[in-house]
């Protein structure tokens, strides 16, 4: 009886720690079988990662913001704004060196993030409203700048960031890996990371513990802003277009990936590794269903169900705990 109980609690432990990971593994196995191994082809796996890289980077940023108890809805618009301006600067006759183009895109993202962050952290405005405003405003700016038309035709070297390969792995995937590692260190190993959890876990206690709640909040939004700039670049370079209406709805995919990975929407709880698994689940799902020739309409339904199921699973685990 005792050993049985012990076994049961060990199984629970594994489920608690790796539950969502097991879901990913099972999904991969099922899709591999159904697709006669086409899913597991090296090229396809690389493809999954490439597809995942864009929302993946945003999901990492969203994780930090959600843990502080905030939300950023403006990422799609901000990345479009950064994208069109970068695209314009990268046209073949442009005198700007590439480094300046990249830096500008990141700075535009940072600036938008700083506006969000300042209003939320220092003026005390609700994140939902502030970033909702930024969603519309940044989209308007992108459309205005691009005169409503996509900007096409860049220098070849610019496209490298979206289409190039290094050691057989696409550049966007390298960027995703780099950002994941940096963010993982920030969140789980630094003082700042502890403070991010503290602010979301109990804002009053954070303040009473000597933590500058405002600066922590400000940081997560400008960090997200910078990531938007990077994603804007990647997306423009990959599609060969600076589209003013790019990125719409990406904020929800980013939040979904974080939430599937166990990040709490009410703050104080989350993990970068979880978010990575979350983005892979979404990526594998859409890639797998594509391979199996399932219509995108049905894909959307399945995606919706997966998001809700993942959160339910998390709630059940927390309750059992």
């Amino acid at each position, binding site marked *: 009886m005792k050993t049985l109980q012990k076994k049961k609690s060990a199984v629970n432990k594994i489920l608690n720690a790796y539950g969502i990971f097991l879901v990913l593994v099972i999904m991969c196995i099922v899709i591999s079988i159904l697709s006669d191994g086409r899913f597991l082809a090296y090229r396809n796996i690389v493809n999954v990662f490439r597809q995942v890289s864009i929302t993946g980077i945003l999901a990492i940023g969203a994780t930090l913001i959600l843990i502080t108890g905030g939300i950023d809805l403006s990422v799609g618009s901000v990345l479009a704004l950064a994208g069109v301006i970068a695209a314009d600067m990268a046209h073949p006759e442009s005198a700007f060196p590439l480094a300046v183009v990249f830096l500008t895109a990141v700075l535009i993202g940072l600036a938008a993030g700083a506006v969000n962050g300042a209003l939320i952290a220092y003026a005390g405005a609700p994140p939902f409203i502030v970033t909702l405003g930024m969603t519309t405003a940044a989209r308007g700016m992108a459309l205005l700048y691009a005169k409503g038309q996509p900007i096409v035709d860049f220098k070849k070297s610019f496209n490298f960031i979206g289409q190039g390969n290094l050691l057989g792995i696409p550049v966007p995937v390298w960027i995703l890996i780099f950002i994941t590692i940096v963010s993982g260190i920030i969140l789980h190993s630094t003082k700042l990371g502890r403070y991010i*959890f503290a602010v979301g876990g109990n804002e009053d206690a*954070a303040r009473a513990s*000597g933590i500058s709640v405002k600066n922590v909040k400000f940081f997560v939004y400008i960090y997200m802003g910078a990531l938007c700039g990077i994603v804007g670049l990647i997306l423009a370079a990959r599609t060969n277009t600076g589209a003013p209406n790019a990125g719409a709805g990406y904020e929800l995919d980013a939040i979904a990936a974080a939430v599937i990975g166990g990040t709490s929407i009410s703050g104080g709880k989350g993990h970068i590794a979880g978010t990575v698994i979350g983005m892979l689940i979404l990526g594998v799902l859409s890639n797998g269903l594509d391979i199996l020739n399932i219509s995108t309409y049905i894909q959307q339904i399945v995606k919706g169900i997966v998001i809700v199921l993942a959160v339910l699973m998390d709630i059940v685990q927390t309750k059992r705990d």
Partner: protein
Amino acid sequence: MTMMEEKLLVMHGITKEFPGVRALDHVELQLEKGTVHALMGENGAGKSTLMKILMGIYQPDEGEITLKGQTVKIDNPKKALKMGISMIHQELMPIPDMSVADNIFLYDYPAKKGFVQKSVLYKKTEELFRELGIEGVSSRVFMKELSQAQMQMVEIAKAVSAKADVIIMDEPTSAISDHEVENLFRIICTLRSKGVGILYISHKMDEIFKISDYITVLRDGQYIDSAPSDKLNQEKLVRLMVGRELKSIYDRHPSVTGEVMLEVKHLKCKGVCEDVSFKLHKGEVLGFAGLVGAGRTEIMEAVFGMRKRQGGDIIKEGKKLKICNVRDAIDYGLALASEDRKKFGLFLELSISYNITISWLKHLQKSGIVNRRGEREKAGNLSKDLQIKSSSIKTRVGKLSGGNQQKVVLAKWLLTEPDILILDEPTRGIDIGAKKEIYTLIEQLAREGKGVIVISSEMPELIGISDRIITVHEGAVKGSYTGTEITQERIMMDLG
């Protein structure tokens, strides 16, 4: 035994097991009509588990509940309410932006064809208040405008309106002033005379003997004893609760106090105080007495940089401090353990070690990266020193008992190596064993030459542990007493 009053509620042989622990082991409880029955025991004795079973939040593994002669099965809290069992929680859960009347009748609106009859609603509320002798609360104001004590009375009225004949009160006096306690007791007496049975949980001894008719004692999930209150006294009760003799709770040797450690001069803080000055000496335990709402907590928050000051100086060892926020205060060697540990002290979802080190990470890092081994060591040592009971320092703080949570808060501030500790209600809602440990700790800190300020609403405690007591009334210092000058009467006079 023949003509005993009708037993209102009998809980017999109640057993409840959680993974790894037997929280209740064949516990007995008998509540008679029109009596106040105190449920006593240290934290972790099983009081709240037993009450949760009665409210239908947990199901017992064994045992039987008989309500008014009928065996019942209480599946959930809704069913408990229907059967006439209500609970006034320690932390009240009002709906702040609805009126008092709405809060009371939320689940039973006087309505005609679905339309709420406002006039009937208010009339019924006022009748109810008259019946219970509740004064000074309007049925129309928003709940958020009431004081803690008033909200509690509304909760009691709500229970009565739900026709409850068993009312559980969990630490009802933990957040209200002495004057309000008297008011509460009057209402409890009214309820008693109406035949309501009241299960009363509290850690305050004097209160128990004042209000209760019977006392049942639990210890480590075991039923220990049950007796009429007049057959017991404080000593006997403590012995039953802890299972050993506690010589004296306050075992204090007055410490030798040294030169001035901290001086607050002409502190001005909008809405709190106009001109407050006081001194704290090295090695001194300075008690702050005052009614709830007198401004003791707020004054300390102003000193600690949690509130904006409009004027005044804070001087430590002759040096004027520039405290603009909590960080500054910590860096100057101040620490403040808040009265509301759940709100201002703890991150319940995070681990013990996380909570202990959060204010001292500056010293546990190298270029921003936290030194995990150092963190584990510091947290581990402190949790051993303070005897925080848990399986590991990775345990979530939310899982700990009140006493252990309080120790985590203290550990966090001890880690910052403060010279001055401000402890606001350090023993609120924790059991007598943990209280004793905290008193010992305070004494030890004073002996090490630190200055300790203690705010407490429990007069015997404050008198028992302080070298000097300052009384605060309506945001102003009234008096300062040392040695034999410290008497309950004198302090009460100042607070009046």
